[in-house]
């Protein structure tokens, strides 16, 4: 089935006329028709996708379908951020990421489900119903970019776009057994992405392979004058780092002594031997306790959320604040509280200070190591309904990726273990210093090519 092809292979086959757009989109649509209803991955689909794709053969992305998280504004197309507040919202402008994707020849095949406003790590808080994990529908896909990760896992697209504030690309990628690249904060423009926590929001690719992630990164990264926090640096061509040697690469393995992560850590240490065989050094390293990152992230993110959602007042989007779901309401209340007079010093300002401590701690580690590795999530994908009564569900799930998120560092999730009983995956998170996505690609690609965990690589 052509929908099972990787992005790199699809582009190649299309350009070589080995396959046609018609055949490709037919297989994709078949997968969508078969499972979208029960898995609840796409909120909306572009019926003219094939028509658009056929005109794009001579572009870098050759008209491949890309699934996009529903918090990216797409011109005249429903953009809801999975919230009832925006259920009728059709933006009259295009986000920079989707604009660049389309300029490179990508076709936005549909908009994917997510935790409402990206508040969560389960896709259960969507106002339009939860998404199920295609690897095992009794389990959650993770979130908040759960729809995009699930679309990849279910072969309902060739490539996908998610956005991460702290874990929202890497964690669903881990739970769905796919690749998720969170670029350095400021590397990919946030323009046109409904803001969650402005100081950490980072759009990025969710894909089948590391190579696919590099290809999409190349299409979307780079300075955007419409985003004041976007970096002026020219991004590297990540495809150049595919297949390069990791000999001499110094890897620090962090979060080895954290309670509740024993199983994931044990399997991780086994797998990291692959790197040693390839000539890299692997060493346990002590990082600042990630439990503190939960506090920092929770305070900063809720504060920014309460501010960023203030605009949805009912004046413009018809549906007023009563349309917010429970999670969004909780976050706004907590954020409002932590920014209030007399509390801002106690919470917000203190959190920013501890945030700086995390940044310094990671800088210290990067003096000794080229990359740091830890499990992305402490556990395999949890069962549906796991978020009920768990107001801090996401923060606990994302604990291991929060430090790098609040520090703005790039990270990539790749699968490193498959649980046969549940058909679920564990993913590792490789993180690098600011602007060093090249190191991530180098390490992740080496691991992927020298192991069998990637289900698409195995097939080809």
């Amino acid at each position, binding site marked *: 089935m052509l929908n099972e092809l990787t992005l790199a292979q699809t582009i190649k086959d299309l350009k070589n006329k080995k396959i046609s757009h018609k055949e490709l989109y037919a297989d994709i649509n078949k997968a969508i028709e078969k499972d979208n209803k029960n898995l609840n991955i796409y909120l909306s689909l572009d019926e003219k996708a094939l028509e658009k794709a056929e005109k794009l053969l001579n572009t870098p992305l050759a008209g491949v379908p890309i699934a996009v998280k529903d*918090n*990216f*504004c797409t011109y005249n197309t429903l*953009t809801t*951020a999975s919230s009832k507040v*925006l259920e009728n*919202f059709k*933006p*009259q*402008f295009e*986000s920079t990421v989707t604009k660049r994707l389309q300029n490179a020849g990508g076709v936005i095949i549909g908009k994917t489900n997510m935790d409402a406003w990206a508040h969560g790590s389960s896709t259960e808080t969507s106002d339009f119903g939860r998404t199920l994990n295609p690897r095992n529908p009794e389990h959650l896909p993770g979130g908040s970019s759960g729809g995009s990760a699930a679309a990849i896992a279910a072969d309902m697209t060739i490539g996908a776009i998610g956005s991460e504030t702290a874990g929202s690309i890497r964690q669903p990628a881990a739970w769905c057994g796919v690749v998720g690249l969170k670029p350095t904060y400021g590397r990919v423009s*946030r*323009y*046109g*992405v*409904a*803001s969650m*926590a*402005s*100081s950490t929001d980072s759009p990025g690719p969710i894909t089948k392979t590391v190579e696919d992630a590099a290809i999409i990164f190349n299409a979307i990264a780079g300075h955007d*004058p*419409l*985003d*004041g*926090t976007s970096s002026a640096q020219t991004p590297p061509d990540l495809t150049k780092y595919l297949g390069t040697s990791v000999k001499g690469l110094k890897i620090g393995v962090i979060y080895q002594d954290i309670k509740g992560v024993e199983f994931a850590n044990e399997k991780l240490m086994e797998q990291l031997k692959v790197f040693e065989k390839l000539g890299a050094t692997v060493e346990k390293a002590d990082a600042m306790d990630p439990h503190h990152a939960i506090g920092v992230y929770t305070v900063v993110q809720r*504060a*920014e959320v*309460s*501010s960023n*959602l*203030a*605009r949805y*007042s009912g*004046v*413009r989007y018809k549906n007023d604040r009563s349309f917010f779901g429970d999670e969004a309401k909780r976050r706004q209340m907590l954020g*409002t509280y932590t*920014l*209030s*007079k007399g509390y*801002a010093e106690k919470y*917000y300002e203190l959190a920013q200070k501890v945030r700086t401590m995390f940044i310094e701690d990671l800088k210290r580690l990067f003096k000794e190591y080229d990359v740091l590795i830890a499990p992305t999530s402490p556990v395999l994908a949890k069962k549906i309904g796991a978020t009920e009564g768990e107001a801090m569900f996401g923060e606990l799930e994302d604990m291991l990726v929060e430090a790098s998120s609040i520090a703005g560092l790039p990270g990539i999730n790749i699968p490193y273990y498959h649980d046969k009983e549940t058909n679920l995956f564990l993913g590792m998170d490789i993180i690098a210093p600011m602007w060093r996505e090249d190191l991530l690609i180098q390490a992740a690609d080496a691991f992927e090519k020298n192991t069998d965990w990637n289900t698409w690589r195995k097939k080809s």
Partner: protein
Amino acid sequence: MKWQDTYEAVIGLEVHAELKTKSKMFCGCKNDPFGAEKPNTYTCPVCLGMPGGLPVANKKAIEWTIRLGLATNCSINKFSKFDRKHYFYPDLAKGYQISQYDLPFCYEGFIETSQGRVELTRIHLEEDTGKLLHKTIDGEKVSLIDFNRGGVPLVEVVTEPDIKNGTQAKEYGKKLRQILRFLGIADCDMEQGGMRLEANISLRKKGETELPNYKVEVKNINSFRFLEAAIDFELDRQAEILEKGETPVQETRGWNSVKNKTFSQRTKEEAEDYRYFPDPDLPPLHFTDEYLEEIKKAVPKLPEEIAIEWSNKFSLDIEKSKELANVESEKVIVWLEEILNKLKEENLDPTLFINDYLNKKINISQEMNPSEVVKKFKELHQTENIDDSLLKEKIEKVFEENQDAVIKYKAGQKQVFGFLMGQVMKEIGKKVDPKLIRETIQKSLES
């Protein structure tokens, strides 16, 4: 007894002025709210607060704010940032206004007035809000929002409570407006709301140094005359309350320009909480010394400084010089200075020119080039020769036609001389040295 014998006024002003940059503060939209033909023409996802609309700061507006600070003797924060100020109002698209909280661009400056120095607490930069229009459409009362003004750069200049009365407030306000206009950064059209005034007013017993335990804020004043009247009214009103042994209510009041009264708008039970925090969409700003030096170079000399220079260079009376230099654009200063230089070159009296100019005796405009102006000035004072016999002839004619006046003069009513002089000049019909005419008439009368 007047209250002024017992109390003294404690008044601080907050002045907002829209900067006239080409584009808005945080987006590329045209900054021309008063020129827009229709509501909501100059808008985009950013100034409408759409999802994912992100602000990018307008460099020029920042430079201009610093320029204003340097022109008003302020210190500049070399590290600064923008903060979000949260409140709900339908004309505020994002639910917060991007403003500056604890690190304004400029702080601790001053502006001199004839009643003493007014210290400036701070000058910061923020974005203006949209405008609400309340209308009845098809019999239904509706509120409409126009965002042409939303996101226009707005400077806020805050003073210490140094102002003593309405007159001083008015003088301060006018000076500030002159500086804003002179720097070429704001039009300050008060009727349209391009400059808006707020006064915090209270009274304390003479000799006390503490701030009073209440203050009354008078908002939305759109002329200096109203500012003066509102302050004076408010001081009288508060004195009356204090005299009764009561404390005026801490509140916001408006000015009714028809009744010439302030009126209560809103009482503040407790301080508002705007939940300020640094805007994460806008990276903090670091200004280098070189950068600030560049801005400093662009700050022109202000009218008062120029007046002193002129007074020395052209030997002018300082008050006359100030009066001449009291203009609102640098262009006019350059024009006037060129004229003064030309007058000096030709040994003409600059004071005479200034009097003619200020009293509008000389018909010139700023479009005229300085040489032309000097020519006109010379023409104004140029006299023509007249044949002695012709002059005498004309005088005789006037005497004959005004025999009454001649008789009166000879009887000792010397004041009719002016009348006769005027008649003669009219008869001559051209400009002749008045001294010559005067002397000739006198001789004729005495003969």
